[in-house]
């Protein structure tokens, strides 16, 4: 079953009087449980593609379906709801809430969903353990290393058991060893939680972790190479 279905997706950015096309008609289908990488050079449109799939940016034209629901015509409240319940995000710069500790950061989406505090705390503790941060649950982001912060971000992305986790350059701010461990962790979580992972990268070294690779160039998907 396809968890993501994209047809003729176009995205234009106005730049003064000029229109800059970022996506020129992308067709893509992602099956449930996939561990897929979108690769391409800077400015190729991979971040734009992830943003539109993640409901944080709007398409100029085309169709995007998440778990069978068309998202392009939804209002802000509805797409926010989809982000909360269906999608998990991992950002390049971790983007944790600085005033909350590890557990609080992880349980944050559950509290937005108004889950009982005790249930949220149990789930957050389980995920903290799974990402190897049991000893750091009371630490704030400023007290953690880059790799540890990204682990918190991964746990937060998974805490709501979303259908899809989107990761935009998750290893870009990490050294190669830490980056590799993060990708290992993501692949492990994909296996354990059966969650679909779509991540972007321009690092060729990351490719060996992907089971499926989509190459994007100048706003178009070139070819889908077979995963290593």
């Amino acid at each position, binding site marked *: 079953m396809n968890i993501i279905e994209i047809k003729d997706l176009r995205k234009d950015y106005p730049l003064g009087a000029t229109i800059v096309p970022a996506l020129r008609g992308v067709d893509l289908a992602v099956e449930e449980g996939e561990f897929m990488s979108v690769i391409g050079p800077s400015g190729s449109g991979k*971040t734009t593609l992830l*943003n539109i799939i*993640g*409901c*944080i*940016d709007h398409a100029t034209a085309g169709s995007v379906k998440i778990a069978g629901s068309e998202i392009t015509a939804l209002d*802000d*409240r509805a797409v*926010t*709801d989809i*982000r*909360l*319940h269906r999608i*998990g*995000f991992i*950002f*390049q*710069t971790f*983007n*944790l*809430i*600085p*005033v*909350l500790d590890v557990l*609080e950061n992880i349980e*944050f*989406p559950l*509290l*937005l*969903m108004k889950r009982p*505090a005790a249930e949220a705390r149990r789930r957050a503790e389980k995920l903290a353990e799974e990402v190897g941060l049991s000893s750091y649950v009371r630490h704030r982001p400023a007290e953690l290393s880059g790799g540890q912060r990204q682990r918190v971000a991964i746990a*937060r*992305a998974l805490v*709501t058991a979303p259908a899809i986790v989107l990761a*935009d*350059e998750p290893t870009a701010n990490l050294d190669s060893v830490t980056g590799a461990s993060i990708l290992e962790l993501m692949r492990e979580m994909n296996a354990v939680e059966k969650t679909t992972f779509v991540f972007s990268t321009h690092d060729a070294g990351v490719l060996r972790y992907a089971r499926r690779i989509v190459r994007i160039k100048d706003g178009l998907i070139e070819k889908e190479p077979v995963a290593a």
Partner: protein
Amino acid sequence: MKLLLTIAWRNLLRHRGKSLVIGAILFTGAFLMTLGNGVVSGMARGLEKNVIDGFMGDLVIISDAQKSDNVLLNMMGSNIEPITDYKLIRPVLAASPHVQRWLPAGKNMAMLLDENTDAPGFAYLLGVDFAEYRRMFPGNFSVIEGSYPAPGERALLIPTFAREEFYNYYNIWYLPEGGALVKENLKKEALEHLDSLALSTSVVMMGMSGGMNTTSDIRFPVRGIARYGALNQIFGHFCLVDIESYRECLGYFTSADMAAQVTEEEKRLLSLEGGDLDALFGGEELSAGAAPAAAPRAALTERSAPADPADGVYNLVFVRLRPGAAYKPALRDLNAALAAAGARVRAVTWNAASGPIGSMALIIKSALFIFVTLLFSVAVIIIVNTLTMAALERASEIGMMRAVGAQKPFIAGMFLGETAVLSALFGGAGILAGALAVELIPLLEISTKNDMLQLLYGGDIFRPALDVYGVALAALQLAGVTLAAALYPMKVSAAITPLEAVSRD
């Protein structure tokens, strides 16, 4: 809510500098507002107590011909219209369930005359029955030199403030008849020129009625020098004089005039008008002697029935209501009863009758409100600016929250929460500090002899007082400031899109 407040509280701690700046502004505003409310409330209470208990009562009955309700400190030359039908008013007051006691009085200005100078001084005269006055306003007037006049005695009581004013006019220091100079009571300037100090035990005054009646110069023997219990600088303009002397001074009918029995012949002569006067001078009546209409006052009074002071002319009737009586129904019922009795008068509240003094609480409250509004406006601008900057600085964090599913109201609520926590802490502390200051200030017994400050204090001593209403008002204003300060940052923060979480990378 708990999550919102947790984030709000920790953000405030994280940005201590900004929090302290905003908090200090909120503290100052809330403190000044609470203290100001206490000052205004104390002033209103003090004025009410001192004016009602010591000078005017709750209501004042004035003539229907009186244009302005303000009959206390009206400008020079504007006279208080006479009340000629007190005999109709008295039974209405006696029958009213609202009224506890009352005092009819004459009140107008008089010129102070002295043979050594052409420039007159001025004084307010309050013509009363001294015994009735003491019953109406017990304890508000203490004689410090001389004594209270005996019942029926024609005399003048000069307040200490008026005596000093008179000294300023004429360099004369007034003493009670038979009294000795009390150096401790001398004005400082008088004490410095003791050798050349002129003393006097009587005052010549000429009434200023402003009407058609002819006023008279009356020499008043000074019976005593007195001090008002409160607001002596203001009430001290009013010299107390017996009502009959007052009426003579103002050219009003005295009770003796009203009691005069006019013969039929005198009535006939008094009724002659116009051409008929020729007949008077052309006939034998001319040889009958002087016209009775021009008869000296003494000649008339010799043929008078016993005089009832109530027969004469007054200007005001001070009315004290029973404890707990509400002004509105009392005023309504009293005015209806007075109209039904045919009295050409109206009752007004003490606030209206005391003019600017009665409105002083409102005026100062308005001034305070404007001041605090300005202060809070500045506070709002600073807080809006600081919070808006904070929102923009935290765009990436807010964008991330939106990206992981926080709706706009959550983000807006987070900023409202931060402002509310600051307001609750610092503003609450400001209110508490203001309330504490209001409680402590009376212990300092700060007193003044300045007119304006006495009005501000509501008496001689500064006694701010705070009630639940004052605290609630300060809290309400603080809540308003909080909301006003948070609105724009809330809007700005809610407008931050999830894209901020990635586009800033």
